[in-house]
């Protein structure tokens, strides 16, 4: 299992390497910019090993990546890895809260919909879900901002925090809510919360739609099994059978689903961050893209990809632990 994880991540590095290496743009220029002198150009050319064979270049690349060297960003002139560390927590914050919403609202909704299949709770959940995954999130974000920020003034606007509140708390985790809570600075906390509400609710809705749909499908499958009938024969009530018998069996595949949802939110955040000017990884990648900052784009892609792969691997692992039939295997 670890071997396959390794293979996948290596595959990812191969892809990012290929993109970086085989682009029509001169990779050296991408690093040094248009105004570098010839000596700088030659030096960097040697540095990134363009005089060597492709497999050698790949190994060089791999070595650098493993030591955390993603090169420098043309845009910010920082090492890319530093930028990534700076921007990642914002995305993490958004994706985590959205997944929590998705789980705590989506799972009960899915169970209710499946257990009451064909009745009105089922229809409501199914429609909400259908809307959720037919919805272009960037559009919903715009509409949400227009309604809840511009018209109603209920939530904070774009950005993570109002300009006046920036840099008021020391960055420990990079997660504003956590950092401000640690310091007890509730003004910053509530301002940050006001800005977080809308994008998190949006992503949370998308997550909820997916999780509820899968939960519903799993519960329907389990409720058709003989052991549920056996539970009713023992004298179990209907909802007792649903929650104490069917649901533990649903938990097993549900873990994979939650993992998938979390992972996909991390990349779905790209669009949300653009709409809300949320300073996270997605925004960083998009901005670097338009500045032809290849190092930043590829570094960001690698990190997002690795986290994506990592989360799926973790949920795979948890799946094996939770299902007693797979434990010895």
């Amino acid at each position, binding site marked *: 299992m670890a071997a*396959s994880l390794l*293979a*996948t991540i290596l*595959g*990812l590095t191969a*892809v*990012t390497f290929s*993109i*970086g290496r*085989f*682009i*029509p*743009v001169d990779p050296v220029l991408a690093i040094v910019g248009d105004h570098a002198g010839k000596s700088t150009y030659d030096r960097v050319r040697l540095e990134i090993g363009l005089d060597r064979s492709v497999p050698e270049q790949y190994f060089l690349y791999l070595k650098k990546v493993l030591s955390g060297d993603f090169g420098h960003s043309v845009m910010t002139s920082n090492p890319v890895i530093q930028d990534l560390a700076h921007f990642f927590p914002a995305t993490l914050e958004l994706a985590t809260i959205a997944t929590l919403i998705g789980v705590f609202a989506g799972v009960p909704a899915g169970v209710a919909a499946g257990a009451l299949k064909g009745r009105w709770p089922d229809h409501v959940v199914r429609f909400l879900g*259908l*809307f959720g*995954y*037919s*919805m*272009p*999130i*960037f*559009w919903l974000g*715009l*509409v949400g*901002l*227009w309604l809840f920020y*511009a018209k109603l003034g209920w939530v904070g606007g774009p950005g993570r925090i109002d300009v006046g509140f920036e840099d008021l708390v020391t960055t420990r985790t990079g997660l504003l809510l956590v950092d401000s809570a640690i310091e007890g600075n509730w003004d910053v906390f509530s301002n940050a919360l006001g800005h977080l509400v809308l994008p998190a609710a949006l992503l949370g809705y998308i997550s909820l739609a997916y999780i509820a749909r899968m939960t519903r*499908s799993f519960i329907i499958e389990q409720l058709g099994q003989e052991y549920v009938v056996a539970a009713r024969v023992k004298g179990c009530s209907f909802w007792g059978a649903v929650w104490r018998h069917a649901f533990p069996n649903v938990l097993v595949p549900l873990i994979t689903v939650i993992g998938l949802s979390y*992972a*996909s939110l*991390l*990349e*779905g955040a*790209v*669009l949300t961050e*653009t*709409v809300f000017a949320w300073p996270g990884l*997605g925004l960083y*990648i*998009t901005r*670097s*893209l*338009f500045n*032809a900052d*290849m190092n930043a*784009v*590829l570094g*960001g*892609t690698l990190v*997002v*990809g690795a986290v*994506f*792969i990592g989360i*799926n691997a973790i949920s795979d692992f948890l799946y094996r632990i939770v299902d007693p039939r797979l434990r010895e295997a």
Partner: protein
Amino acid sequence: MSAVAKSDSAPRSQAEARVRGFARAAARLLENPLAAAGLAVVLALVAMAVFADTVSFHIPPNAQDLNARLLAPGAAHWFGTDDLGRDIYARVVHGARVTLSIVALVAAIVAPIGLAVGASAGYFGGIVDVVLMRITDIFLAFPRLVLALAFAAALGPGIENAVIAIALTAWPPYARIARAETVTIAKSDYVAAVVLQGAAASRILFRHIVPLCLSSVIVRLTLDMAGIILTAAGLGFLGLGAQPPTAEWGAMVAAGRDVVLEQWWVATIPGLAIFIVSLGFNLLGDGLRDVFDPRAS
């Protein structure tokens, strides 16, 4: 089964059996009002794309009129105009073309690749299976949008690159489906009979196994269409995908972003188009799945 099927005589040829099966499936699909609505939306999309000029009353989608900027929807301009005075209705209609081409191209790429990879892996088994599935898993593990961004960064924006980027991460699920079905089918007596008749592996694969995988693949494809449309629109929103002045729904939403507070229609209407089309594919896909695999509803 309807009473009609019982009173008919048996079909006289394989072609006739296929047509009848198709007609039965279509009838069952249309009984479901939501699926029928989805089908209507998809057909409307195709019609708009093919007959774009007629449907838009020959209003040129790229004609600018700086005296008619940002007009609200009305009799002259059904959906109003954007900040360059272009008729939004015409742009939405022509945007259907872009959307449909992306969707069709992606489908045309991923279905054959996925089927080929999955059916081969499932049929030949052994090392072929391991290698192919390993590759599939690697691509399956990649984040779609971010990878598309990276491609766009490298190759430059444009529809072709967007299609390639999306297709590259969209094919793995089809390989998985095809493999799962193939493994089940390959063990069947039906295939054993064909083998005993002396059929070569390629013939078995293409004439017998692949057709049986088709229904699962079609259902999955239809359901995926919605996601592909959203991803493509997302890329358009970010400025990748179709380039100006071509009308593309995602790009139109982005263009309307700055004026969303006052001139809401510029961003809202293209967004609504994306939503409706995506919804249509989802409804159709759900309906198809109910017809082909009722257990999975």
